[in-house]
């Protein structure tokens, strides 16, 4: 039974890998974490949506969600800047053609700065 589940998971992985989202590169749900060097890591879920004029979204959707107040992208360098109350992040979009594209950079919150890793789910 366990083996069948593993095989099913392998095929699911294949299916997910070959069906990308080909629209705005930021649209979708992103998951990852941030933390200072050598320190504990904090999980992040971020939802972003492009409406044709701006990217809006939430950090950690749910009762404690934090709305994004500003998202911008330098399309020449694929650098993403994200602002929310008390939070500032900047990272580079990587593996742009993949469904599981990434944002890798830095995250600042409450006077603490650390590295950021987000992957589009």
């Amino acid at each position, binding site marked *: 039974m366990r083996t069948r589940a593993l095989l099913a998971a392998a095929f699911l992985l294949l299916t997910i890998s070959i069906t990308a*989202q080909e629209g705005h590169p930021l*649209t979708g749900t992103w998951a990852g974490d941030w933390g200072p060097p050598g320190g504990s890591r904090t999980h992040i879920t971020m939802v972003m949506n492009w409406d*044709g004029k701006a990217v809006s979204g939430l950090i950690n959707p749910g009762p404690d969600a934090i709305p994004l107040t500003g998202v911008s992208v330098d399309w020449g360098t694929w650098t993403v800047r994200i602002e929310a109350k008390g939070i500032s992040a900047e990272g580079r979009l990587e593996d742009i053609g993949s469904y599981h594209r990434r944002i890798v950079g830095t995250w600042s919150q409450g006077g603490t700065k650390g590295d950021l890793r987000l992957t589009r789910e």
Partner: protein
Amino acid sequence: MKQLLLGTLILAGTVVHAQLSVPALYDEWRRVTFDGVVTRVEWVNPRAYLFVDVRDPGGAVVNWAIEIGNPLDLEQRGWSRRTVRTGDGVSVEAVPARDTPKRARLLALWTTRPRAQVFAGNAATARPTPAAAGPTPRWPDGQIRLGPPGGRKGYWGAASVSTMKESGSPVSVRADGLLTNVSDADRVAPLQPWAKAVYLHRQRTLLKDDPSARCLPPGGPRQFQTAHGFQFVEQRDQGRILVLFGGGNRNWRIIYTDGRPLGQAAEAVPSYFGSSVGRWEKDTLVVESVGYNERFWMTNGGLPHTEALRLVERFSRLDLNTLRYDVTVDDPRTYTRAWRSAWTVQWVPDRDIEEFFCEENAESTFIR
């Protein structure tokens, strides 16, 4: 069992990475030539292969996988699966793959006994001989028929262009969708900055992430530029027109002509072909569609879109053999304004669409 699982994962990885667009897969600026012996003929869609044993300068024998094109196109050019057989001696001129050793795309092939050229040029889609001219066929009530004339067969084949750009733009785009000069990106369509960045990324990576190369359906206008055509089945009593595609994976689409409203994009389940309603305006079928997903490129060059995409397509049958397709692309999340593109499609008389499944070999069978 661990080996089986490992094999499954390797297969998964192989399929994902092996299914690339032709420009990304092969280095068109290089050539290889060699003599060898055919060990296998793989006659399957979307790409048929010859496998050839070649003795290298050190005396070792290596097996090359030579892509020879699509079987349907090859058959139209007079090939059959027995034109070259296992055991035949051959001389090969080919374009090598960029990253996969011992893989190439055929340019020319000679049999060595007797010496005869049996293949020349690339395996681009063969274009059937144009049909005899004739008037636009009509139903008894005078409405234009988009399908065959009564009692006849046929389908719509090759489009006049294989890629898409704004009508009237002088930009030069290759048949495979690559711009002759990437600095012309702004002239292809009125792209928003993010869309231009994505389009340029796709161009600069030689279209390697094209979903169609991985056998996903050719959604949007691209459905009318596939290599193996399409046909309309007009079910007038049911108020709908079916569009059956010979390209992709024998996909199909419904255009409702029963007067129902179009609906809203936000209400539709996003799909490759969207939700479509059509109406006749004199001799032109006007089709409006919304509800597209974001999982396809609507042209082989990599023009992006979002779920806000709305298409207005106009189909006009100019005569028996010519269909004019005119599409207005309206996606305010991707483009700075609505824009148009148009091309014609040629009728293939007295024939049925042949069976073509893009997924058939998934290119995993030759990985060694």
